C-alpha cells in the first residue's frame, strides 16, 4: 500500500468508530510493542477560520494506523512505534495535509494540523454518481462539492442561499419577494421540452421531493421542500449535472442530481453549538427612477405627500385612503432564529441532534382590517428537529439512522398575476380593481402549513478488505395544507369563499449497491452492482366552499356551494445497474456501466429501458514526463445516458369523469393514449480537466458538455377535427444543449495574518430545439414558445430590430436553418419605429426565456484566523423577460416612463408621435412584445463578515464564539426596465415559462448572528 492510500474499509471504519474504542483496540493489538511506542496527539483545525474539524481522518498510512478526530477536532494516535513517521490528515472537501513526527518510546508528540478547504481535492471522496465512494481522481465527470465551511461564515437561511453563486453550471433564481416562497433550481439549463428540468434531490441517501408543493393561485407562489432543510445541519452538498454523471440514477435523472449530506456524530463528550440569528428584510425603491416615479409605483409611498417635481401629488399614483399609517405599503420585516445542536458519541455509537425555531417577517405592511383588527403578518414561522445516529453492532457492520422533521407556517398576501393581487392594484394607481382602496385586498387570508418527515437507514457491511455492501432505505413524507379565504363581506366576492388544498407526498427509497475491489492483471478493479426501487405516492383533496351566510371563522361547509376534488396516484420506478472501474497505476481510470430501468409510466408495449455510461480519468500530473512543480492536473471525459419518464397516464387511452346537466355524471375525452410511449433519453458527452498549480494556490476546472435529448416527449396535438382533442405525448422530438463551465480559485495571500481567496466561475448552457416531429411550435406559456427550426427567409432576416438587442434570425442567410432556444420569447415588435405614424408590427422571436450563461465572483479574506469577509456576486444573462407589469401599466397610461407620451396623447398630439413611442406607450396600440427586454443582471448576493472571538473574551465553558453579519441581495445591476430581472409571476412553478407580472421583487436581508460552541 502506498503511503497516501488508506483502504476504503479502513476509511469506513474510522468514520464510525469513536476515538476511545479505536485506541483501546489498537493498544490491545500492539501490546507486545508497547514498550517501544509513543503517542501522537493534537488538534485538527480549519486553517481559514480556526474552527476544529470534527471527524477528520488522522492516520499513519505506512503503519496502517488510523483514527478519527473527535467532535472538537482532537485526536490521539496511541502506540505508535518509535521512530520518524508521516502523519496524514484527510477530510472530504479539504486538501490532505501531512507532517513528519519523531516519536520517542513512551513519549507523546503534539502535532496540530490546519486544513484548507479545497475546491479540487483529488483524494477527496465523492459518493454521488458512483456506485460507491470514489476518490475524485477516479471520476470522469465533473462534480461540485460545497462543504459547510464554505458557507458557515455567513448565516445562510436556506439551501438556496448556499447554492446561489456556488454551483458551477447551476442557476438558482429567487423568483420573488414573498417570505417562504421557493426558488427555481436548474443545472445546465433546459433539456426537456415537456417535463421537469429540476434535478433530483437526495438527502442522506434518501430521495426526497424536489419540486414545489401546492401552488397558490392567489399569491402565485409555492413553497419548496428544499427550504425545510436546516442549512446548519448540512455537512456538504454534492452536485452532478448531466446524463454523463447521472446514469446510475436512471430515468428521471437527466436534470442532474443534488445530494445533501447532513452532519454526523463524532466520538467524544457532547459538543454543543448554539446560534442566534436576528435580522431584517426590506425593499428599496420599486420600479423606474424616482425622478419619474417618486412613489415607487405607489408601493413605497401610498400616501403621496408631494414632491418638488410633482407638486399637488402624482396623478398616476394618487393617495390611497387605505394606506397604512406609515404612508407605505412596505415595512421592515424582522427575522429571528435559534439553533441548538449537539454531537458526540461513545464506543460503537455516535449522534448528532439539532433543533431550530425561527420566524421571518415579510416586507408588506398588512395593517388592520375594516373592523380594526390586525391582519395576519406576511411571513413564516418554522421549526425543525434532526437526529442522526450511528452504531456498529459488529466489526464489519455500520448502521446509520438519519431522521428529520420540519414544520412551517407561511402567510402570504395576494400577489402576481391576480386581479386581487396587491401589487397589481397598487401599481395600477387609480386604474385598478379596488377603486384605489388597495388595503381591501389584504382581507384575503393565504396560509400554507408544511410538515415534513424524512428518515433513512444506511447499512454498510464491509465483510472483507476491498468489499462493501451498502443498503439505503428511507421515506420522505411531506404534507402541505393550503388555505385561502375571502371573508364574508370581502369587497370582490361579497359572500366570501374558501379553498383548502391538502396534499401528502410520500417517496420511498430502497437502494442497494455492492462493490468489490481487486487486482486484475496488474490493474485495480472495482466492480459494483446494485439496484434501486422508488415509490412515489401522492394523495390529497382540494375543496371549495362558496357563499357564506355571515361573518365568522369558516370551514368549507360554511359555503352554500361546495366542491371537492381528490388526487391519488402512485408511481413506481426501479432499475438495476453494474459498473466496473479499472485503474492503472492509480492515475488512469476507466469506468464502464449500464443501468436498466422500468417505470409505471412507460407504455405496456415499451418494456425496460437501458442507459449505458463510460468515462475516463487520467491524472496526467502523476506521470514522470509531466513538469515538476506544476501541481495537479486531471484530464477527464465522460459519456452517459439517462432519461425522463412520461407522465402517469400518458400511455393509456382514457376518459375523465365530469358533471353535466346540473350535477349528473358524464364522461369527456381525456387522453388518447400511446402504448409505445417510453422515456425521453438524454445522452451527454463531457470532456474537461481540473487541477491545481502554484503550490495549490490556484485551483481550476473546465469542461465542455454536449447533451442530446432524443425521443424527446413532445405533446403532439391530435388532429382537432378528429374530435379527441388535446395533446398526446409522443417520442418524436430532439433537443440539444451545449455549454462550457469553468472556474478558477486563486489564493492570493496565505499567512497566519491574512488569507485571501478570490474565485470566479462561468457557465453557459445553450439549449435549442432540433426537431419537434410534425409540429412547428408548442406554446408553453404566454408568448413563450418551443419552436422547431425554420428556414431563413428574407423577411425574417431583414426584420427591424427595434431596440438594438437583436432577434433570432436577424441577418440570417436565406435558406439556412434558424434554430430557437428552449424556449423562446416570440412577440410583436414594431417595424417602423422612427416613422411618425401608427406602428406596424411583426412577430419576432427575441431570445431564450432562461439564462444562457451564469457567472459568479467571490472573495474570502480572513485576518488572523478570526475576521472573515466573504463576498458572493452572481450574474446571469442571455435571456429575455417580459414585463407584464410595464405593459399592463402602459395600457392604462400609468407607467412612469411613459409620462411624456401620455401627456402628448392627452394634449391631442398623438399624430406627432413616432411609431416607436406609440408602440411602447400609447394605450391603444402598445403590445406586450415592446416590453420584452434582455434581462441580464448582476446581483451582489451576499456580503458577510464573521469574527471568532478571542478565547480570553469568552467564558471558560465555551470553546468558541463567533459573531456574523450578513447582507443578502444587496445590489442589482441591470438594464432591464421592469421591476426585477429575476422575478417570475408563478414563483417556483416547475415550468419553462417565465414572465414578470406584478410580483413582489426579491427583498434584501441583513442578519446578525452569534454562535457559541461549548
Amino acid at each position: 500500500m502506498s503511503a497516501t492510500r488508506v483502504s476504503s474499509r479502513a476509511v469506513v471504519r474510522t468514520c464510525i468508530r469513536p476515538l476511545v474504542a479505536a485506541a483501546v483496540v489498537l493498544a490491545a493489538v500492539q501490546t507486545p510493542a508497547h514498550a517501544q511506542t509513543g503517542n501522537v496527539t493534537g488538534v485538527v483545525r480549519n486553517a481559514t477560520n480556526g474552527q476544529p474539524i470534527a471527524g477528520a481522518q488522522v492516520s499513519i498510512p505506512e503503519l496502517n494506523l488510523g483514527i478519527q478526530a473527535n467532535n472538537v477536532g482532537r485526536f490521539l494516535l496511541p502506540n505508535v512505534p518509535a521512530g520518524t513517521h508521516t502523519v496524514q490528515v484527510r477530510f472530504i472537501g479539504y486538501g490532505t495535509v501531512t507532517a513528519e513526527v519523531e516519536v520517542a518510546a513512551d513519549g507523546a508528540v503534539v502535532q496540530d494540523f490546519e486544513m484548507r478547504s479545497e475546491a479540487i481535492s483529488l483524494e477527496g471522496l465523492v459518493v454521488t454518481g458512483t456506485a460507491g465512494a470514489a476518490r475524485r481522481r477516479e471520476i470522469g465527470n465533473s462534480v461540485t462539492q460545497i462543504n459547510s465551511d464554505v458557507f458557515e461564515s455567513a448565516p445562510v437561511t436556506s439551501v438556496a442561499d448556499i447554492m446561489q453563486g456556488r454551483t458551477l453550471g447551476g442557476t438558482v433564481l429567487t423568483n420573488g419577494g414573498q417570505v417562504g416562497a421557493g426558488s427555481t433550481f436548474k443545472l445546465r439549463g433546459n433539456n426537456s421540452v415537456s417535463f421537469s428540468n429540476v434535478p433530483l434531490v437526495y438527502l442522506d441517501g434518501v430521495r426526497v421531493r424536489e419540486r414545489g408543493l401546492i401552488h397558490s393561485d392567489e399569491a402565485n407562489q409555492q413553497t419548496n421542500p428544499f427550504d425545510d432543510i436546516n442549512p446548519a445541519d448540512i455537512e456538504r452538498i454534492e452536485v452532478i449535472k448531466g446524463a454523463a454523471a447521472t446514469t446510475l440514477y436512471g430515468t428521471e435523472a437527466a436534470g442532474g442530481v443534488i445530494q445533501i449530506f447532513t452532519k454526523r456524530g463524532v466520538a467524544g463528550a457532547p459538543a454543543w453549538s448554539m446560534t442566534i440569528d436576528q435580522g431584517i428584510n426590506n425593499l428599496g425603491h420599486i420600479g423606474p427612477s424616482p425622478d419619474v416615479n417618486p412613489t415607487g409605483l405607489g408601493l413605497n409611498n401610498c400616501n403621496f405627500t408631494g414632491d418638488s417635481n410633482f407638486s399637488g401629488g402624482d396623478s398616476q399614483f394618487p393617495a390611497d385612503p387605505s394606506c397604512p399609517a406609515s404612508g407605505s405599503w412596505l415595512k421592515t420585516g424582522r427575522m429571528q432564529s435559534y439553533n441548538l445542536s449537539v454531537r458526540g458519541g461513545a464506543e460503537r455509537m455516535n449522534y448528532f441532534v439539532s433543533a431550530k425555531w425561527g420566524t421571518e417577517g415579510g416586507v408588506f405592511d398588512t395593517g388592520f382590517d375594516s373592523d380594526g383588527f390586525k391582519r395576519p403578518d406576511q411571513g413564516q414561522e418554522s421549526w425543525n428537529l434532526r437526529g442522526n445516529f450511528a452504531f456498529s453492532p459488529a466489526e464489519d457492520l455500520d448502521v446509520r439512522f438519519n431522521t428529520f422533521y420540519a414544520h412551517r407556517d407561511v402567510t402570504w398576501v395576494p400577489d402576481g398575476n391576480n386581479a386581487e393581487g396587491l401589487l397589481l392594484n397598487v401599481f395600477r394607481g387609480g386604474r385598478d380593481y379596488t377603486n384605489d382602496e388597495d388595503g381591501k385586498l389584504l382581507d384575503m387570508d393565504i396560509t400554507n402549513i408544511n410538515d415534513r418527515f424524512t428518515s433513512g437507514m444506511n447499512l454498510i457491511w464491509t465483510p472483507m478488505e476491498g468489499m462493501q455492501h451498502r443498503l439505503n432505505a428511507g421515506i420522505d413524507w411531506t404534507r402541505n395544507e393550503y388555505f385561502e379565504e375571502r371573508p364574508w363581506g370581502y369587497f370582490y366576492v361579497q359572500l366570501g369563499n374558501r379553498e383548502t388544498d391538502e396534499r401528502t407526498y410520500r417517496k420511498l427509497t430502497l437502494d442497494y449497491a455492492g462493490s468489490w475491489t481487486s487486482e486484475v492483471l496488474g490493474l485495480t478493479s472495482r466492480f459494483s452492482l446494485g439496484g434501486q426501487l422508488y415509490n412515489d405516492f401522492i394523495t390529497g383533496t382540494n375543496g371549495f366552499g362558496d357563499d357564506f351566510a355571515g361573518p365568522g371563522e369558516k370551514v368549507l361547509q360554511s359555503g352554500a356551494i361546495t366542491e371537492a376534488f381528490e388526487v391519488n396516484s402512485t408511481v413506481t420506478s426501479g432499475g438495476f445497474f453494474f459498473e466496473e472501474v479499472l485503474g492503472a497505476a492509480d492515475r488512469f481510470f476507466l469506468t464502464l456501466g449500464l443501468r436498466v430501468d422500468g417505470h409505471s409510466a412507460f407504455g405496456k408495449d415499451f418494456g425496460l429501458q437501458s442507459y449505458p455510461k463510460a468515462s475516463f480519468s487520467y491524472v496526467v500530473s502523476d506521470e514522470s514526463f509531466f513538469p515538476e512543480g506544476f501541481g495537479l492536473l486531471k484530464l477527464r471525459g465522460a459519456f452517459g445516458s439517462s432519461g425522463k419518464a412520461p407522465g402517469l397516464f400518458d400511455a393509456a387511452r382514457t376518459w375523465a369523469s365530469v358533471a353535466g346537466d346540473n350535477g349528473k355524471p358524464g364522461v369527456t375525452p381525456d387522453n388518447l393514449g400511446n402504448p409505445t410511449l417510453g422515456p425521453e433519453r438524454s445522452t451527454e458527452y463531457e470532456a474537461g480537466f481540473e487541477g491545481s498549480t502554484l503550490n495549490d494556490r490556484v485551483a481550476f476546472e473546465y469542461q465542455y458538455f454536449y447533451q442530446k435529448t432524443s425521443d424527446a416527449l413532445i405533446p403532439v396535438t391530435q388532429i382537432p377535427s378528429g374530435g379527441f382533442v388535446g395533446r398526446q405525448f409522443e417520442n418524436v422530438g430532439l433537443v440539444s444543449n451545449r455549454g462550457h463551465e469553468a472556474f478558477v480559485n486563486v489564493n492570493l495571500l496565505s499567512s497566519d495574518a491574512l488569507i485571501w481567496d478570490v474565485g470566479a466561475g462561468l457557465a453557459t448552457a445553450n439549449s435549442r430545439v432540433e426537431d419537434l416531429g410534425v409540429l412547428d411550435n408548442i406554446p408553453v406559456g404566454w408568448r413563450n414558445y418551443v419552436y422547431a427550426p425554420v428556414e431563413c427567409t428574407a423577411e425574417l432576416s431583414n426584420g427591424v430590430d427595434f431596440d438594438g438587442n437583436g432577434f433570432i434570425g436577424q441577418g440570417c442567410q436565406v435558406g439556412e436553418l434558424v434554430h430557437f432556444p428552449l424556449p423562446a420569447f416570440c412577440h410583436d415588435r414594431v417595424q417602423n419605429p422612427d416613422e411618425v405614424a401608427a406602428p406596424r408590427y411583426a412577430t419576432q422571436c427575441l431570445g431564450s426565456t432562461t439564462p444562457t450563461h451564469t457567472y459568479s465572483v467571490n472573495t474570502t479574506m480572513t485576518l488572523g484566523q478570526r475576521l472573515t469577509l466573504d463576498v458572493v456576486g452572481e450574474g446571469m444573462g442571455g435571456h429575455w423577460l417580459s414585463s407584464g407589469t410595464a405593459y399592463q401599466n402602459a395600457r392604462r397610461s400609468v407607467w412612469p416612463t411613459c409620462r411624456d407620451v401620455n401627456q402628448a396623447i392627452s394634449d391631442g398630439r398623438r399624430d406627432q408621435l413616432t411609431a416607436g413611442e406609440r408602440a411602447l406607450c400609447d394605450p391603444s396600440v402598445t403590445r406586450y412584445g415592446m416590453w420584452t427586454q434582455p434581462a441580464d443582471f448582476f446581483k451582489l448576493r451576499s456580503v458577510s463578515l464573521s469574527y471568532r472571538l478571542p478565547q480570553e473574551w469568552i467564558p471558560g465553558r465555551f470553546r468558541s464564539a463567533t459573531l456574523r453579519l450578513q447582507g443578502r441581495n444587496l445590489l442589482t445591476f441591470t438594464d432591464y426596465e421592469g421591476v426585477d430581472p429575476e422575478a417570475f409571476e408563478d414563483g417556483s412553478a416547475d415550468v419553462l415559462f417565465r414572465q414578470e407580472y406584478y410580483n413582489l421583487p426579491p427583498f434584501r436581508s441583513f442578519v446578525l448572528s452569534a454562535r457559541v460552541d461549548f
Partner: protein
Amino acid sequence: MNTIKTRFLVPCALVAAFAVTGCDEGLFDVKNPGRILDDDLNTAAGVASLVTGMSSDFSASYDNLAFTTAILSDEIVGSGSYFSTGRYRRGLFDSEDSNGFWAGVQRARWVAEAGILRMKEIEGYQFDGNVQTARAYLFAGLANRWFGENFCKTVFSAPYSEETPGPGGEVDTGQEMAREAAFERAIPLLQAAIQHGGAAGASDIVNAATGGLAQVYVGLGDASSAVANSSKVPTDFVYAAAYSSNSGREESIIWNETHGRHEISAWMTLAGTYGAGDPRTPWTDCSDAGSNCPSANGADGETIHYRQEKYPTRDDDIPIVKGTEMRLIEAEVALNNGDLAGAMAKINEARAHYGLDALESDGTIGSLTGGEGGGAHPTSMSGWDILDRERHLTLWLEGRRLWDLQRWDHPHLDGGGVVYEATVDRRVTCDILGGPRHIGMPIALDECQVNEQVADRCFSK
C-alpha cells in the same frame, strides 16, 4: 474464493433475484383512480353518462364562444386585462387565437357523433326511440350548427368513414370544406333527433331539434325550409346549454367574466345605450354608488363596467334555441319577401313575449345601415334596421351575433370598435380563407400543424 463468492455474489444474487421477480407487471402498475378506460364505456348502463358528457362538452365550450364572439361582434366590449380580449376588441383574431374555440366545437361535435356510433353497437341498449338517442342526435346537430355559424371553414376528420358513414352518408376526409357543410351535416342529425325524440315523447327535444333545423336552413339560405320548421316552435320555447354551480366545469364563464371579474362591459354598446331598461339586455352600472360592485371600472381600469345581468349567477343557462328567435326568422323571411307588415307582426310577437311594447316601422323595408356601438342602428325604424336591432337584443350574449353580421355582410364589420380603434379594416376577417368580406373564426393553428390537408390554411395577425 469461496469467501468472495459468499460475501459478494450472494448479496448480488439476491438483488438480481429481486430485480427479476420485482419486474413483473404488478410492480410497475399505474395506480391512479379516477380515469375511465375507453372499453369500459361500452355498456348500456353507461349510455346516460355518455350523453350527459355530450351535454357537458357542449356547455363547457359554448359559453366561451358566446363570451368571445360577443367581443368580436361588439355585442359587448372587452374591458379587461386579458391579452386576448385586448386583441379581440381591436378586431385581431388569427388561427392561433382560434385554437381553443376550434377544439371546443370539434370535441362537442365528435363526442356526440362518435357517441351515436358507439351507442348503436352497445349490446343491450335500445337505440331506437330512446330519449338518450334523441339527445345525442340533438347535440350532434346543434354542435354542427354552432360550427357552421361561427367558423370560416369546416374540417371533419372523424368519426365517419366508409365503413361507418354519417346519417347523411358523410365520410370524413380531413379536407377543408365550406361552412355550409356543417349545416348540411346538421340536418339529418336534427331530423333523427326529432324522430327518436318524438318516439320517446320528448317534446322539448323535438322542439329544440325543429328550431335547430330552422337555424341551419337560415344558414343555408333556404327560407322556406327555415319557416317550415320555425313555425312549429312555440314563442315561449327555450332550449338552453346547461350551466350550474354544481362544479367548476359547469359554471358559466360569462358569469365569471362579468360578475367574478370585470372583463367585458355593456358600456357604449347597443345594449348599454338603446337597450337600457330592456328586459332582454339587463345590466348594472357599476359606477353607480349603490351598485354594490367591487369596482366601478373594467379590469382595464378605464372602461366603465356595465355588468350584464342576463346571467346573474353561475347557474344561468345560455339559450341555444328560442321560440322568439323563430319569430324573428319568420320576420326576416317576410322582409326578404317584401312583407313589412308581416315582419313587424312577427317582431312584435316576439317583443310581446318579453312584455315590450309593439314597434311601428317608418313604413320602409330599407336596408341595414348599421351604427355606432355594436353595429345595429339605434334609432332607425326601417324594417331591416328594426330586425337587426331586435335580433341583436333578443339574442344578446347567446353566441349568435357574429353569424348575423357575416350572413348579412353587415356595415359594422368595415370598422367599428367601441372603446379602442380597430386596427384592421375588417374585423375578425377570415382573410385568406373566405375572401375580403368573409368573417368568422379561422381554422385553428393546431389543425394546420397536424393536418397536412389544411397545412397552408392558417394565418397569423
